[in-house]
């Protein structure tokens, strides 16, 4: 199995916290179970509808190749097996910023990724941020998880 950078299950808390601004995209606010991460993410709800209360699994990975070879940067069609097969919604983007938030014991690290303009903010324990680098190309993979 390929090694991913981050894996967790999130629950959608809120849709469009600042009001709906765009027709086909919603900004979701979500919180994870395992690492207690906070996330804001722009999702193309036109193709992948999301609702408050839904749970989904989110994975961040540098490559879709199952054997872990680095991503070539090109799209290669053909029915090759890839990590994406198991997921419903995949985006590719770039990490452009790491920042710290808060101070003292509850200091958090913010990771900002832009998936072609759809943005993600991932906030959590600083140790998680250590795995990420600036200018890293990332895939985000999402799959809805049953409420059960």
């Amino acid at each position: 199995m390929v090694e991913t950078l981050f894996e967790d299950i999130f629950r959608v808390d809120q849709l469009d916290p600042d009001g709906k601004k765009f027709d086909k995209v919603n900004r979701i606010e979500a919180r994870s179970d395992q690492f207690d991460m906070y996330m804001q993410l722009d999702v193309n709800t036109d193709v992948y509808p999301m609702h408050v209360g839904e749970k989904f699994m989110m994975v961040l990975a540098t490559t879709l190749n199952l054997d872990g070879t680095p991503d070539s940067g090109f799209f290669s069609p053909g029915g090759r097996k890839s990590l994406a097969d198991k997921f419903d919604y995949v985006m590719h983007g770039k990490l452009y910023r790491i920042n710290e938030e808060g101070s003292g014991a509850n200091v958090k690290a913010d990771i900002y990724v832009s998936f072609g303009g759809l943005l993600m903010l991932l906030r959590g324990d600083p140790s998680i941020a250590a795995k990420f680098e600036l200018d890293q190309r990332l895939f985000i993979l999402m799959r809805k998880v049953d409420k059960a």
Partner: protein
Amino acid sequence: MANAMNENRGEPDKTLTFTKQPYIVDVGPRKIKDVKFSMFSGEDVLKLGEVQVSRSQSYVSQEDKRPVDNGVLDAHMGPTNKLGTCETCHGDFHSCPGHFGYLPLVLPVYNVGYMSHVVDILKCICKFCSRILLVETERVNFLKRIRNPNLDHLRKTGIYKQVVKRCTAMASSKKVVICSRCHYVNGTVKKAVGTVGVIHDRSKVQNTTSNEFNDTIYLKGSNTPAKLSPSVGPDKALKLFKKMLDEDCELLYLADRPEKLIISIIPVPPICIRPSVPVAGGAMSNENDITLRLAEIIRANASVREALSGASVHNKSLGVLWDNLQLSVAQYVNSDVRVADSSQQNGKRITGLVQRQKGKQGRIRKNLSGKRVEYTGRTVISPDPNLKITEVGVPIKVAMTLSYPERVSDHNIERLKRAIRNGTYVYPGATHLRKKDGSIMSLRFNARKRLAEELKLGDIVNRHLKDGDVVLFNRQPSLHRMSMMSHRAKIKHWNTFSFNESVCNPYNADFDGDETNIHVPQTEEARTEALMLMGPIELWTGKQLFSVLLRPYADMRVYLNLSVTEKSYTKPSGERVKPYETMCPNDGYIYIRNSELLSGQLGKATLGNGNKDGLYSVLLRDYHSLAAAVCMNRLAKLSARWIGDHGFSIGIDDVQPGDNLNHNTNRIISQGNKKCDNFILDFNKGNLKCQPGCNAAQTLEAQITGVLNKIRDETGKVCMEKLHWRNSPLIMSQCGSKGSPINISQMIACVGQQSVGGQRAPNGFIDRSLPHFPTNSKTPAAKGFVANSFYSGLTATEFFFHTMGGREGLVDTAVKTAETGYMSRRLVKGMEDLFVCYDDTVRDSNAIIIQFTYGSDGRDPSQMEGKSGFPLNFDRLLNKVKATCPAGQHRGMSPTEICEMVDERLSMHDMSTEGGCSEDFRRKLKEFLEKKAATLEFTRRVLNGEESLTLENVAQSICGITSQQLKVFLEVCISRYHNKKIDPGTNVGAIGAQSIGEPGTQMTLKTFHFAGVASMNVTLGVPRINEILNATKKIRTPVITAKLTCNDSIPFARLVKGKMERTLLGQVAKSIKLVMGLRSASIIISLDTETIGALHLSCINAKTVKESILKTPRIKLKDKHIRVLDDRRLEVNNPSTYDRNKLLFDLQMLINKLPSVIVMGVGTIERAVINKKKERDKFNLLVEGTGLQAVMGTEGVNGLETTSNHILEVEETLGIEAARRSIIKEIQYTMESHGMSIDIRHMMLLADLMTYKGEVLGVNRFGIQKMKESVLMLASFETTADLLFNAAVKGQVDKIEGVSECIIMGIPIQTGTGTIKLKQRDAQIEKMCKGLELILSE
């Protein structure tokens, strides 16, 4: 007569032929060094003249069209038409340069141009012995001073004025001066009113001193001396002037003998400058105005001669005829001379010599300063998105008329041969061929084939314009240097010039019929200069798909990094503290990293010009002008094609409000109305709480205006929220292309309040604006509030109010253009010759230093990247460096390491002041990096509780910097800083003048503005700029801002305010009563202690009041007249007079005067307002009025931080340096309040120019005349004739150095690329031997 003489002109040859070509002496190249102005004496005119003109006829007769001998058109002065020949040089119409004639006058007359000088001289000399009136010691003293060789023209004029003043002052009291040498009694001298003449008023002589001086020579034997004629005729003046000593002339700053001020012989100008135009097939002729005037003079002269010889046919006396002659000569010189007798013909005005020179259409401004040029074209413009930004489409028709002289070489001979074969009428052809031997051949009809065959290397072919030729493109008005830019020509069909629509902005062009000019530089040097200095791109300051536009292929090494906030960027509100930055919900934060657009929708802030951090500006600074241009072109093409496919239009449905929107607007409007009603109700009941410094009515107006303006803003906001995102006006407004929320709201929701002169609609009828409303109605609707939208339609009254507002706008724009145009002209005339020298100083053309370093750091304002004119934007640069050289495996530095490295680099030579780095830049760079180090330290401390390596890495990736990155950053910063140095020779003056003048055209004319407090208005806009530039003595709204020593308590501020404000006795007195006793009458003043207490003026008591009364001027009371009865009562007795009848009146008068005695405060202050700035509740005082010194001296005011907006007052109180600062500050403030920012360097230069003489000089004719010396430059500005006459009298020399003079003389200008000259070392230096060897060498 002002006579320009070329000092260096050589001796005329004997073989000289007269042509209109300039005569060039063959002894080496010569150029005009200077121009000397002088006067002509009668002999000079005789020497110059070829023929005596004595007959007023022009032609022999109707049929015989030969000029009359000795007539005004005598053939000795040149041929009148193409058929005639000159009888002096026998040249024809084209070759004869024209010759002067002379016209001797029977009796001398004054020259009106010199009238003021004549009067001044007569004031200063004795009217009997012609010596100066000054006492000997004074005379010697003045002479010594005026002979000082170091004096310039201005100081000499100053001394001369002192002499005149002294001489007139001697007569002041008795109106009589006795000459200390001949004891003649002189009266006062005045200019005659109504006629041209001088009056010597000796009427007082007889009254006062006739008894004492009866034995003086002049009055001896005369019993009725009062009968002496008061006027001094030209003959008498001439006699007096001839007797004057040269020494006295020197004292009066006369360069020449004063008798030249009086005309005895008139030079008659050559015919070519006053042509005679045949009309009606040659039967009649239209004579030039000058000729008509001359004929008139000849007739007047003849009748005087007749009268003298006694053969007069008229019964008029000699005096009348002489006056007539004087008048006609005066009008010949200046037709504006006012004439007393009303019999003047009131038809077409006949111009005089002065009228030919002065004004916009006069010789100097129209023909000498504005030259006509060849190789130009003009036509209508149209857009063409397929052209590059650097290109301009030139129609073939134009391209075939304009030409470029190309020298034939091996590379182009084939092409040029083809061009010659094609000739003038076939494109691509050529118009002329210039052979090596200098012969020029037209290619219109000549044997072109043969010429093409014979074409040799080195010949010059004037070929048609072709693709890629450099042309200058210009659209008027040329307000700034971007109005004329160099482009590459692209030859196209049709008849219009076309260019890429991206360059509309700098030209301010649209395509509704605008016309533009094109110029073709004719030499390679000119082409290169145009390319280097005037390229359009140089001067431009304009998501996945977009990344492709930025960097279309991987090899392209453009790594763009920037972050911009667009208009739609939302600031955090409520509990959110941290800014959104990239997570902005409106996607309004642009973040581009390594040419990859990561977030944000691009809009005006990113793509438009004017933003220093915009995409194109960054591309231009970080990469190349080409990169920016190419990118701009790609985007422009994409947008044009996309919008062509997609379409974009506005229809009526775009402005139809939905139910929701309607509901909301109605709610907002009704709420506003209700609020206003409440205010009005309060006002009527008298419950309205007054705002500081306002009365109830003003407060009501302010409150209502506030509410109504808010309605418009709110409806605008609602529109922006509720409209569908595909709504066309909304899109236009959001992306910043055109329109604001207010415009949308006006179309859809509510037009809003109409204002006239910054107020609500005024009352056009008695107590109401329109008869549709009840009187004294203050409701929104009655005072011009328009609740309807343009869609819903305006009611009749609303429509009327709207037209009122609209008219004001129209008038405003019409007035504005004229006013700002004049302002620009004054600025340019004042600053045109300032340029940067090679030693970094800014000097004018006389090499007088204006600034030691341009803008105090010597940087080029057009290349500034940072905020408020700072050279660099460190934050952006650091981000770029971090993005372009990623940390990779390198370890980040520790904060101490960073500081060490920075210190090391900053101590190197190129960061020192000697190395050309300003202290300010060094400090800012250091501070910036120290701050970065501190943040890193902080982050590390926060994250790194337990010293783990992983967390250290996180900290580094958050805000760390590697040694390599730091090094690159420092090098980039420093090298860029040095690259931004202003080029020596730059015309910073002209650029500065344009940079200040051009934004002026965008300002609305009359704007008033709250200076923090309601009711405290400050003049802004063009009038304010005018006030500053003119250094006006009495400005409209002087405001002193006073800081308080204790700035956080209101009572203290009130105390100071009370002390400062003018308090009159009438305000604090309970009563001022007249008390009549049995034996005496007096006035009793009793003070009102309650009021005094309420006003916080506890220091006012009877004693202080007594002192203030004594100090008040024009109340002639002495100490003994006022008695202090007790602490709050005074008794005033009647002053001086014991006349019982007058006593009551005197006391009544006192009673009237006493209430206006100032008992406290500064008299010049209108009022003071306590101003509370929101942040941290600090108080300061805004004082309306003048009296800075008094305010600074008031107890409780912090004098060190108290300023005024009155520049002359600042100069008076704080000195010239403070005045300079104040000029900069005030211009900046005015511009900023109109949302315009101008680089501070321009304003610094202007302020330095206005203050460098040690006093504040306005940029108008009075100030500029004190700044510059050159006569020609000043004459080309204003008051042309006066300056020329004065220059002739004073014998001024104009060295041709400045910009205006060089243009007038047709000499290359000594600034810009003209500063440097190429000097060639000649191998063999021979001594020039002309004529005899000089025995004495200098």
